[in-house]
Structures are given as structure tokens and as C-alpha cells.
């Protein structure tokens, strides 16, 4: 077995004494695999995601990225090597689409030509060709287009791991479905490990190779979408899927 892209080993995290968000959280994401962290709001899934690029640090346990404990890594360098997509995209409103996509390459000190070529490549991939869209500002785009730019920005420095926090959560249903389908295409071509946080059962089952159902700061069940659907491990998983899966 190769080194997993991400491994949580018995991780605990609380924001205040006695108010634990994650407790004994363990999970592996293999290289090239897409894993969805699925659960109700407040279950700890976003916290788990933020432990991977050290936006948060755990109280106990370990988080490993490609076999290395993240706490031995420089947080800034780690984040530049890890793709990051959030809800509402968080694009920089004062920069053009191209400048937004070039963000991490610029932080890494790539020269202008290489940055621009990379941005053009990614903008083409997400269906917003640079010639037409590169000079626009985020506010001139629709929500779905902003989210595409957010994905392109996350991929700019070609990170082996992509973290996505409710990436399609703020979109209307039609734009969301369209982007989900496209994501499946990108994912196949890119071969990256993806850790995806969502509360949308359909999205988790559609996009991921495996789903981790989270509740109360613990993984209740991990399995392929098929396994989760067919054999929910307990009442919680069954109920959570039942509410939304139809």
C-alpha cells in the first residue's frame, strides 16, 4: 500500500474545554482518491478539513499528509502545496480572474510567463477561456463561474491534494448539478487526492470514491457510495441518508 495522501490518527479537537468537536477521529485518504466528509452542520467535518492545512491544530493525535506529520511542516509552505476551495469561492474582488488564478504561483515566485500559461491552461479546463474571461473581475461573474475560478485557483500550483469545503454549497441547484458533473470530469483527468466536505448526501454519493459519514466528531461509517447506501452501519447513517438521498 502506498503512502496515504491524508491520514487522521485518533485526532481530538475542542474549541473550549468540555466542548469537543472531534474525538478519536481517524480516517485515511489514499493518493488519487476522492473522499467526502459527510455530516450535519456542527459535526466537525470542516474542523477536520482545516487540520489538514493547519488552519487549525489538533489537541491530540496526528494528521499526516503524504506520510509527514503536518505539525513538523511550515504551515505557509504546506498551504501553498495544498489546493483549497471554499464556499462562496472567496475570490479576491480587487483582482481579475487571471490574477486570482495566478495567486499561489505568484506567492511561490514563478515568473510571469509561466504563471500566465498555467492560468490560461486552467481557465480553459474550467470552461472560462482566458481570452474572454481573464480580465474580468469576480463581481462580473455568476456564482457558478466564480466557483470555477475558485477551483482553477486551487489547482494553479498543481498540488497533489485538494481540500474543498462545501465548494458547491452556495450555488443554485442547476449550477450545482452542472458543476458537480464537470468536477467528475476534472477529477478523472487530474488524478489528485480530494478531501471534500459536504452536508449534501447526493453530492457526497455522486462525487466521491468513498464517503465518511461524520457525526458528533467521529467517523460513523466509511465506505464506497454503494456500501453506504446498501448497508448503513447504524441508525444515524440510515436516517441521515434517508432524509436526503432521494
Amino acid at each position, binding site marked *: 500500500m502506498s503512502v496515504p495522501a491524508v491520514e487522521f490518527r485518533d485526532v481530538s479537537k475542542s474549541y473550549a474545554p468540555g466542548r469537543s468537536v472531534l474525538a478519536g477521529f481517524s480516517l485515511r485518504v489514499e493518493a488519487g482518491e476522492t473522499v467526502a466528509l459527510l455530516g450535519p452542520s456542527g459535526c466537525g467535518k470542516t474542523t477536520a478539513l482545516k487540520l489538514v492545512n493547519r488552519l487549525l491544530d489538533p489537541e491530540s493525535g496526528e494528521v499526516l499528509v503524504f506520510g509527514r506529520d503536518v505539525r513538523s511542516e511550515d504551515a505557509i509552505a504546506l498551504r501553498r502545496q495544498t489546493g483549497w476551495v*471554499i464556499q462562496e*469561492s*472567496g475570490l479576491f474582488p480587487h483582482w481579475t480572474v487571471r490574477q486570482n488564478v495566478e*495567486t499561489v504561483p505568484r*506567492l511561490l515566485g514563478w515568473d510571469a510567463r509561466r504563471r500566465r500559461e498555467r492560468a490560461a491552461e486552467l481557465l480553459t479546463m474550467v470552461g472560462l477561456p482566458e481570452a474572454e474571461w481573464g480580465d474580468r473581475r469576480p463581481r462580473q461573474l455568476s456564482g457558478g463561474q466564480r466557483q470555477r475560478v475558485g477551483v482553477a485557483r486551487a489547482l494553479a500550483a498543481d498540488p497533489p491534494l485538494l481540500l474543498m469545503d462545501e465548494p458547491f454549497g452556495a450555488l443554485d441547484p442547476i449550477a450545482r448539478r452542472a458543476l458537480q458533473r464537470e468536477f467528475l470530469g476534472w477529477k478523472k483527468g487530474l488524478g489528485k487526492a480530494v478531501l471534500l466536505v459536504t452536508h449534501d448526501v447526493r453530492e457526497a454519493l455522486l462525487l466521491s470514491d468513498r464517503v465518511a459519514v461524520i457525526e458528533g466528531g467521529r467517523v460513523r461509517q466509511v465506505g464506497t457510495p454503494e456500501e453506504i447506501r446498501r448497508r448503513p452501519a447504524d441508525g444515524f447513517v440510515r436516517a441521515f441518508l434517508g432524509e436526503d438521498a432521494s
Partner: protein
Amino acid sequence: MTGLASYFWERRAEIAGLTGEHALLALVATALAAGIGIPAGVALTRRPALARVVLGAASIAQTVPSLALLGLLIPLPVLGGIGKSTAIIALVVYALLPILRNTYAGIRSVDPAVLEAADGLGFSPGERRRLVELPLALPVILAGVRVATVATIGLATVAAAIGAGGLGVLIYRGIATVDNRLILAGAVPAALLAVGADALLGWMERRWSA
């Protein structure tokens, strides 16, 4: 009216000289206030508790009547005395609050989602400030500088009371001799200066808005 115009024309050399002096006084004071207020406002965003105290103190300083502040500064060693430097110190005190307050508010108003994105993408704290927070807060900061500039140009007329020169010289002389034309010879250029500065900074503000 033509009488007033010809009165101004006869004194054009003196009016022009004092207008230049006045503009320089206001410019130096506002520039110093921006040089202190913007970095201080940025630093305060990291310490909200301290920010309340500092912004409160700056508000109180602004309630001191300007003529009284000038009078109080005269006997002070180093800072005080008669002349331009004392006047500039007083003007800086008044210009500081709008700049400080707007810098603080401007940076605090940056969308948290944008800051979260910057952190997650791997901006260092310095890069985040320089490339994201300051550019996004710039229109609000400039609005503070604009308010401060206009207020300083008006206030600088009072500086003539302690021998700092500027258009206040004509106004005080007009008051002393009960000559309204002389008062207007000081007041009209000061008002035009303020309107001009307001328009220029307003244009910059719009130009640099994201």
C-alpha cells in the same frame, strides 16, 4: 461684486503667497497624520481592546477647541512655541482621528471569506496585509484622508493666531480692522482650496475602488 474682485486682484500677490503657505501647512499636517494614522490603524486591528481605548482618546482630543489647543501648546517645551511647527502639531491631532478610525474600520470590513481564502492559500501575515487587506480597505482609508484634509484646510486658518501664517492672516487682519473684504480675501481661497482637495481625493477614491 466687481469691487470685491478688483480688491482681490490688487492683493493677488499676497493672497497667492498666503494660499501657498496655507496649502503647504495643511498638506504637511495631513501627510504626517496619514503617516501616523494609517500604520497605527492597521496595528490596532490586531488589538481590538486597545483600539477602543485609542479611538476613544483620539475622539476626546478632537473635542478640545482648536484655539484652546493652540494656546495650550505654546508654553510646552520642544513641541510648543510660536510658529508653524506648533500649528502643524495641533493640525495633526485633529486630522488623526478620521484617518485612524477609517483605517481601522476599512480593514475590519474586509470580507472574512476572502481572508479565509488568503490564509488557506498560504499568504504569510505580511502578504495578506499588503496584497489583500490594505488594497481592499483603500477606498475607506482614502475617505478618511479626504475628511481629514478638508477639515485641516479649514482649521489651518486658526493657525495664524500663533503666527503660523496662511490665509488666516488675512481673516484675523480683517476682523481686527472690521474689513469684510479682507476676511473674504482669506476665506474664499481657503474654501476653494478645500473644495479642490475634496474633489481630487474623491476622484482618487473612486479610481482605486475595487
